[in-house]
């Protein structure tokens, strides 16, 4: 929910009950005031009638009007304790032929020696209409005020929050891999300026840390190269020793294999950080078909060994890409498809205007497909893969603006590169 809606909702939640209560209270206050006024008027009329009766010993004759009436009824004598009484009633207005509200005052009066129950009635229709009008006007002005407040609130908030949305927009485009620090437009409001400053400081800190980690990876890998090369070659020299017995030679060979593995790992990490650092930005037009064919021919021994059934459908395709990364991408995907294939399995390679697809039979990966591009995630335990191959593929795709789609379905592993994302 948007902040504006939220504040307006809260505003409504507070203001509506207040307005409603105020309206109800006002209505009753006015009602009581009108009653009081009418009752006073009735009391005055009573005094006038009593005076008239005292003087003439008969009821005044002029009294029957639309808005005021007088009713007289002989009273049973056993009701001597009858007292005056105010009450509400309705009477038919003969002109408009509808019931109208009246206030009634009943009181006893002795006329010509006979106790009579007198009722004087006063119409309250005008007063009530007036009250309704007042309430309506009040409600209208409340409503207008309310609408105006909401509208102003909306307009003001839109303007006031403008810097916030700008900041948000810039933050959306922020990547840790950005070469430049985050720059936010200065905001007039102190709160937003503080937010921007904090964000700038924070992102700069994070970005610097990230760069440092990347630099560290690159430096560490670089520094490891030489000792690794020395270890590898010294091991090979040791292996030349004629006096080695079989156990020693085998152990040395295992050490040498591990050293090679470490060197490869190191190479891959170095490659990854170089791709991330955008060190392969140079692009040129490259024919993909010969590249795929070359890499496939390179794998012939491995394909023959696994007795794979290879099916290719390669069309001519030129792509603007860094040639080293293109080679790495293709050879990684093809090597993976052969390495993780089953004996006697299938390998299908498609290349056309839009995509490059490598599909191979495989056992189900023991990690979710989406996680295989994470570094050191391995799809299977059987091979001693480095767990970096697909990370490199994913990184190359990101860096070169290619779409990568990995799926595993019905024992078929598919890697699909979309040339247009």
């Amino acid at each position: 929910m948007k902040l504006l809606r939220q504040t307006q909702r809260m505003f409504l939640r507070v203001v509506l009950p207040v307005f409603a209560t105020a309206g109800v209270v006002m209505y009753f206050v006015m009602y009581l005031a009108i009653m009081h006024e009418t009752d006073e008027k009735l009391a005055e009329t009573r005094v006038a009638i009593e005076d008239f009766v005292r003087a003439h010993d008969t009821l005044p004759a002029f009294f029957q009007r639309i808005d005021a009436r007088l009713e007289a009824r002989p009273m049973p004598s056993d009701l001597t304790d009858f007292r005056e009484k105010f009450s509400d009633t309705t009477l038919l207005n003969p002109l408009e032929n509808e019931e109208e509200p009246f206030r009634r005052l009943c009181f006893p009066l002795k006329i010509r020696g006979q106790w009579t129950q007198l009722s004087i009635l006063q119409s309250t229709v005008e007063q009530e209409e007036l009250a309704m009008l007042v309430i309506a006007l009040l409600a209208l002005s409340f409503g207008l005020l309310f609408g105006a407040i909401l509208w102003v609130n909306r307009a003001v908030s839109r303007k006031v929050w403008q810097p916030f949305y700008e900041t948000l927009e810039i933050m959306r485009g922020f990547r840790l891999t950005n070469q430049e620090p985050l720059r936010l437009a200065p905001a007039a409001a102190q709160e937003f300026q503080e937010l921007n400053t904090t964000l700038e400081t924070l992102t700069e800190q994070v970005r610097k840390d990230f760069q440092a980690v990347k630099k560290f990876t690159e430096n560490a890998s670089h520094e490891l190269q030489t000792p690794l090369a020395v270890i590898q070659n010294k091991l090979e020299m040791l292996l030349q020793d004629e006096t080695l017995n079989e156990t020693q030679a085998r152990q040395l060979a295992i050490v040498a294999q591990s050293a090679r593995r470490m060197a490869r790992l190191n190479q891959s990490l170095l490659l990854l950080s170089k791709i991330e650092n955008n060190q392969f930005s140079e692009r040129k037009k490259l024919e993909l078909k010969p590249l795929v064919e070359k890499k496939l021919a390179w794998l012939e021994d491995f394909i023959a060994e696994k007795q794979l059934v290879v099916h290719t459908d390669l069309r001519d395709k030129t792509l603007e890409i860094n040639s080293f990364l293109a080679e790495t991408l293709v050879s990684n995907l093809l090597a993976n498809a052969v390495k993780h294939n089953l004996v006697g399995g299938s390998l299908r390679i498609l290349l056309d205007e839009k995509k490059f697809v490598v599909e191979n039979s495989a056992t189900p990966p023991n990690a979710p497909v989406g996680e295989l591009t994470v570094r050191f995630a391995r799809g299977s335990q059987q091979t001693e893969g480095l767990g970096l191959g697909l990370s490199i593929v994913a990184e190359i795709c990101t860096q070169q603006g290619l779409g990568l789609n990995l799926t595993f379905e019905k024992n078929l592993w598919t890697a699909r590169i979309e040339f247009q994302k």
Partner: protein
Amino acid sequence: MKILLIEDEPDLAATVRDFLRGEGYLVEHAADFPTADEKASVYEYDCLIVDINLPGGGSGIDVIRNLKKKRPWAAVIIVSARNAFNDRIVGLDLGADDYLTKPFYLPELNARIKALLRRRHFGGNNDIIFNEIRVNPNERNVSVSDVPLDLTPKEYDLLLYFLANPNRVLRREIIAEHLLGDDADQMDDFNFIYSHVKNLRKKLLDRGCGDYLRAVYGIGYKFTDKT
């Protein structure tokens, strides 16, 4: 045969130097750009092994550029980082003859130097001879006791590699890296070497060749005529 080794890492330089001396070369070493540039321009070497990254105000590329101006025929092998693709291309454009990516195995360097030196000394007979085996690298043909022998390209490469590194235990991985190049990094399992070696050995034996190709404790092979 005189070789100039340009490499700034002392440990690695020492390892390479010792190895090459063991192979019978005269090796001089330069650890930074000024030394390398001076030696390369003053003395004549049969082969220069040039690391691209050098301290001292210039790179291996600069050394090659200066050298090629004076002696365009100089034999140069570039050593570059695996993914320093551009250095490699620039170096080859400047007239370098070959390149190796770090980290490399010394038998590989050895094979590259031998191949390069052979190509340089095209004047005379540069056939490779090992007892009854004779290889003509220009024609890529092999004969045993003067009878031609048919080999597949991989078997031929394998034989040449063994001949460049005789009497040395070559582990399967090293042989695989030689046959497959840098992309060998992609693979883990090099059992296919076994069938190529087996076929090569059988073809040689069928021609009455001595049994030179020997398996060493299941870790690799050694090409030798010593018992």
